[in-house]
């Protein structure tokens, strides 16, 4: 389970920043920095509903502002629903 207490968030943020600093500067990223970045971003990861379970209902605006739900997004055989970080950064 994800650790929801904030006690190690500063340490994780520091690991993410160090990784980002090296990548931005175009410097080689040492294995231990890569490792701690992976730990910082994935610690206690959760992957949501499992095969066989139902996803929760959702209704979200698309890029045109239209409210979309599974019903009108799905093709005849279903939908690949991809969760990602950001399209902006």
């Amino acid at each position, binding site marked *: 389970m*994800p*650790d*929801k207490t*904030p006690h190690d*968030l*500063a340490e*994780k*943020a520091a690991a*993410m*920043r160090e990784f*980002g*600093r090296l*990548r*931005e500067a*175009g410097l080689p990223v040492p294995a231990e920095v890569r490792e701690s970045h*992976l730990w*910082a*971003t*994935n*610690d*206690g*990861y*959760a*992957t*949501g*509903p*499992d*095969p*066989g*379970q*139902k*996803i*929760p*209902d*959702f209704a*979200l*605006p*698309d*890029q*045109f*502002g239209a409210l*979309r739900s*599974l019903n009108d*997004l*799905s*093709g*005849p*055989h*279903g*939908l*690949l*629903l*991809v*969760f*990602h*970080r*950001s*399209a*902006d*950064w």
Partner: protein
Amino acid sequence: MMLEKNGLRIAAVSYDSQEKLAAFAQKHAIGFSLLSDKGSETIRRFGIFNFNMAPDLRSYGVPHPVEFLVAPDGTVVKKYFVPNYQHRVSGSAIALRQFGTVNQDAPAVTLESGALAVQIGFPSAKAYAGQEVAFLARFALQPGWHIYGETVPAGYTPTAISFEGPYVVRQSLELPAAEMLNLPKLRETLPVYSGSFQAIGSLLLKHPLPEGKLVLPGRLCFQLCSDAVCEAPQTMQFELALTLEPFVISERDLNRARASEKKPPRE
């Protein structure tokens, strides 16, 4: 798109505002729905909110990078999760696993040795560095012959396909369940494959890699036996090439993304 040919559609969810998504969709000519989960409420309801991000980071509110293949009634059929958010399972790998679909121009080799023929190929020639790509191996054995599965005693060679070289980070091969063959003379029962069957494998490609042609050397190991004779174990080498496409998001944009984690949120 191979997924659409198979009656699937794609939608992507992020915490970006609708305006940001509209700009991104226009810039990159995105042909599928980009859904705005501003405030990350849906991400939380799916149980994939990333609690590792400090609230003052721009990345606060992002999900763990999960992909769900969902049936029209909302049942999860498959779930894909690669811990590194830059790595995604390829659409062609999903199409291959779910539907056995292979592109017309897909690279493939056929290896033949005596009673065995194996065709190994990728479902699509296109791939991206850092992607998980699937491959398909179709085996055909002449009647009366078999090869071995796992687990066999010492002296027998199980069937295996592996890719070599520095470009593959991780790989696996899913063979079907072997049939148990009883050999009373040898007082052994061994897992074997006979007739025609197929196996699906998976490769996680290294990131970064230069764009263009990527030649992946591989080897097929097996041991052919009939009821009467057992041949020596064999290793056959082969090569398959993929074409690595440029990232839609450039390396510079990726670097900017890392740098932005230092800045407070803009909104």
